[in-house]
């Protein structure tokens, strides 16, 4: 499988602060890659280095097989980006903004421009917005327009920084559907976010950034694989302990964790002994548990040295 984003020993130093401290990203073609990290953990600096906006202190970035920032002119037209919220010229309409952005660089044919703009506006749900100036858009509409800008040249790779900011729940669901749709069409998605739920629902691979270091990078299926235990919900937890002697790993309220990878077998034993069972599931760690275990305290906490 070809790699779409590769970084090797990427470092960005601002004065005495290391915002990014030697990270080795590996995003492969076809991934929906969730780039997680608390506010201030270095996500945005990393995204900016990927796109050639910030120049690394050390290390290298390879984007679609080209060394950044030198290969930018060749590879960036094939990348769609939403960086730290949308930004547009307030006194122009959404379509005029898209046209100016498209004309500002290579890889966007003038002949197809009008058609492409109409198409992406429909795609993000702004088809009927007409000539209204962006200054009169709501936050959610601006976010949609930003997304439209990223999609304008049918990119192979989407680099999205917090794409659902400012959207209502319906909007978030819509964007999720849109991204999954694009992904099915072959687009690789690099999604930087601090919203665990968003990443958990969308991503096939996850990288976790903590204070500038990549503390975790793995497939989602692997990270949230069953732990080898079964969770039993019962109004009589003490009776589970007596039936499944020695297999109980822990109890909290009406929930008992039992060793065993086959919930049916656990259920048969309990029901056979007359223990009421109201819920039964294989135990899987949530992404939140995985991330909290990998990363330390919140990065915007500043402790006394």
């Amino acid at each position: 499988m070809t790699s779409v984003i590769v970084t090797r020993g990427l470092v960005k130093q601002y004065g005495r602060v290391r915002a990014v401290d030697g990270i080795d990203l590996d995003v492969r073609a076809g991934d929906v890659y969730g780039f997680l990290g608390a506010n201030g953990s270095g996500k945005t600096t990393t995204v900016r280095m990927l796109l050639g906006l910030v120049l690394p202190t050390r290390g290298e970035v390879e984007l679609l097989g080209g060394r950044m920032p030198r290969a930018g002119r060749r590879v960036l037209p094939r990348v769609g980006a939403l960086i730290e919220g949308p930004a547009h010229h307030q006194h122009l309409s959404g379509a005029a903004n898209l046209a100016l952005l498209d004309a500002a660089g290579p890889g966007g044919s003038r002949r197809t421009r009008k058609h492409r703009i109409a198409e992406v506006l429909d795609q993000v749900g702004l088809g009927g917005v007409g000539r209204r100036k962006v200054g009169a858009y709501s936050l959610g509409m601006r976010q949609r327009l930003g997304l439209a800008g990223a999609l304008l040249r049918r990119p192979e790779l989407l680099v999205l920084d917090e794409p659902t900011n400012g959207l209502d729940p319906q909007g978030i669901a819509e964007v999720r559907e849109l991204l999954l749709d694009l992904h099915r069409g072959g687009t690789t998605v690099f999604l930087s976010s601090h919203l665990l739920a968003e990443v958990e629902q969308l991503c096939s691979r996850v990288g976790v950034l903590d204070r500038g270091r990549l503390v975790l990078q793995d497939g989602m299926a692997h990270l949230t694989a069953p732990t080898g235990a079964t969770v039993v919900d019962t109004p009589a937890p003490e009776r589970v302990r007596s039936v499944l002697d020695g297999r109980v790993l822990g109890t909290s309220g009406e929930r008992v964790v039992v060793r065993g990878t086959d919930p049916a077998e656990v259920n048969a034993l309990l029901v056979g002994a007359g223990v009421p069972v109201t819920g039964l599931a294989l135990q899987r760690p949530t992404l939140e548990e995985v991330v909290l275990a990998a990363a330390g305290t919140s990065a915007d906490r500043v402790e006394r040295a």
Partner: protein
Amino acid sequence: MIGVELSKMFRRPRTWATIAVLNALPVLVAVLLQLTDLAPRPGEGPPFLSAVLTNGQLFPLAALAIVLPLFLPIAVAVVSGDAVAGEAQAGTLRYLLARPAGRTRLLVAKLVAVLAFVLVTVVVVAVVGYLVGTLLFDAQPVTSGTSGAGTSMSGTPLTPEELARRTLLAIGYVAVSMLGVAAFGLFFSTLTDSPLAAALGALAVLVTSSLLFTLDAASPIAPYLPTRYWLAFVDLFRDPVLWRDVVRGLALQGVYVGVLLTAAWANFATKDVTS
């Protein structure tokens, strides 16, 4: 890319508002002159103004001389200071660079757009000045001989062709002087993410320069002050034309523009864009 920047510049309401305001002052002056018939005596007030009552065709030059010391540089400083810093503040700079617009290309396109603004502004001031001047004042020469359309600053008559030619030269000279201001604005614009700070920086340079110019103690550095030769366009209307200061002014602006644009490029091409 240049087309994009030009389109941004001239589709912006602010650009036209600035040009309109810039024309308001000379028009006001013309109306007041016409109503009161009280022209400043020769050698007082803005250049050419004393002669305007008798020859309206000199009013484009008077108009340029009226806006040149303050209004025009302010407008140019605001527009050039906004060039890069304005995009940074609005957040659109990151999208332009990730598009990718290319940093050097973007800077060149911004420079061309500012240049176009300077030219359009100077030409509009001159054209409006001509219209107002010929409308409100006598277009016919009073003091000169039979063939003359106007008088030079030296008192000799000028043919209409000669007057037009020299007026065009003057417009060009003023535009080059403003290019120096634009270079300061553009350079400061790459240093900061605040368009206001960049414009004020460029203005601070000009205020400092004008102030030092009046100070005897600063006379050793006076020939190198950016505003030193601004009014040298008046020399284009002497007979014969006094080229010395005009040529020095052009050379000085050339050096400022070259150095500042190189500095702007060096800074912008290697800068971390965090806006």
